[in-house]
């Protein structure tokens, strides 16, 4: 066989050795770190220790944020743990329920007819509008916060799943059918793997939404958490702690996004899609 010059999936040559650095320069991968360094530099220059263009109470300097971090070192780890736990539980359960119902609605026409009006009428309502009810029903405990995130994630994932199933090319289903796969087998071996690439975007969006919702939930009342810490700091005009909280939420969100990207890149390693 001669036509074996191929391999588009692993097509990117991984240059190791002396050319790696020039590759890094040429591809422009340095632009990411450079952008972060520039952003930090501007932040430093316009605040207290730089040219002092903005009053520290309105916009604290990097140095003040670092000091705030040292000052609150005994509280922040607990806040991070509380917030992360809520986000992870809500995201995982919301994703599981959304996937489950989305797949059920795709599998059975009757399930689709039954659930479609419910899902479609619930979806446009911002889940944040439910907060007063959740406070009434569940108080300021964990249940309401968990349900808020779960509901927000669920709404995105259920619709994305139904749409992703619709986009599965019919030829794969026909081929599986003619190879003797029954309906359940076709669902398990064709539909489920085929929708994974389409769910990467919705998963990333709902992870980011989880962080938004957890802060909103913690604003409504909590014993710990980054949103709660920010609200407490606002009460005392500790703007350095507010900015510290915001920075940590941003970092956590970026880390979870990276984790999702690596995980889904592994699941879709067959597709040859760009990382």
């Amino acid at each position, binding site marked *: *066989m001669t*036509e*074996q*010059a*191929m*391999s*588009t*999936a*692993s097509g990117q040559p991984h240059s190791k050795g002396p050319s790696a650095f020039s590759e890094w320069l040429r591809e422009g991968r340095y632009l990411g770190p450079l952008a972060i360094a520039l952003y930090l530099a501007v932040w430093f220059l316009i605040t207290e220790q730089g040219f002092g263009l903005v009053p520290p109470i309105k916009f604290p300097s990097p140095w003040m944020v670092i000091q705030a971090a040292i000052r609150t070192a005994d509280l922040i780890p607990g806040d991070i743990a509380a917030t992360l736990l809520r986000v992870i539980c809500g995201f995982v359960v919301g994703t599981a329920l959304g996937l489950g119902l989305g797949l059920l609605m795709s599998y059975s026409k009757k399930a689709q007819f039954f659930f479609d009006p419910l899902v479609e009428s619930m979806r446009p309502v911002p889940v944040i509008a439910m907060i007063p009810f959740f406070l009434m029903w569940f108080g300021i405990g964990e249940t309401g916060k968990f349900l808020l995130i779960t509901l927000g994630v669920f709404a995105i994932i259920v619709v994305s799943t139904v749409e992703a199933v619709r986009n599965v090319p019919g*030829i*794969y289903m*026909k*081929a*599986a*059918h*003619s*190879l*003797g*796969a*029954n309906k359940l*087998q076709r669902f398990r*071996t*064709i539909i489920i*793997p*085929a929708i*994974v690439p389409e769910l990467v975007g919705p998963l990333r969006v709902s992870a980011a939404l989880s962080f938004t919702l957890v802060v909103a939930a913690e604003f409504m009342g909590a014993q710990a958490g980054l949103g709660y810490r920010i609200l407490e700091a606002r009460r005392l005009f500790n703007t350095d702690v507010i900015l510290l909280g915001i920075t940590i939420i941003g970092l956590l969100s970026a880390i979870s996004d990276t984790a999702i990207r690596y995980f889904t890149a592994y699941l879709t*390693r*067959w*597709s*040859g899609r760009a990382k």
Partner: protein
Amino acid sequence: MPQTTASKIAASDLTVVFGSPERQVTALDRVNLSVADNEFVCVMGPSGCGKTTLLNLFAGHLAASSGSLTVNGAPVAGPGADRAVVFQDNAVFPWMTVEDNVAYSLRMRGRPNAEVRDTVDHYLARVGLTDFRKAWPNQLSGGMRKRVEIARCYAANPEVLLMDEPYGALDIMTKERLQEELRTMWLEQPKTIFFITHDLEESIFLGDRVILMSPRPGRIAAEYRPQLPARRDMSIKTTPEFVSLAKELREALQAFH
């Protein structure tokens, strides 16, 4: 040449009408056709002659408006593992490795692992893809993906192979090599093959019988039996028999326009 006995798939007075009651298109008009067991039949015709419709009927992906359609004497009711389809577009599952694709039908039927492994080994070797068993289909060329599909269909051990212009999208060199491979594979392991194509040389090279269809409405216009040796390679394309049949078919095709 493989033994040809009873009729494997048959159509009688098959008519298919598409469209709304006001604007009807007759895709197939009273088609009568019978393919013998282990016969290699090519259906050739210009686009719009209903040849793919005919294949979809046998595959069970489509229902006829009137007339009857049988496989092994029993009416066709939906797709089945007794009839494997090779499509023109790529139908290799991209999320499965080459070997998992070939193993697919056996796994779906819950065959024991040892049998799955032996069958996969056999057909991968048969199509020359043993070294690529762990590869993802995305890493293969179009011709190699077609080989995976042929191996996958053969591993399913169907009674009938329905092939819908499978090599239509390939370059001429790859196409001819795959034609030789398919012909050899069929000689070694006979199956009833129903092969749709619009390439007249392909139909003569592959088929023991060539059915010519005319367009709008789709009808069987003529039948040819190429008098060529059972074992064929591309050199037969220059033999007088091949050349004169190609000329005859070309003239018949031109008569449709």
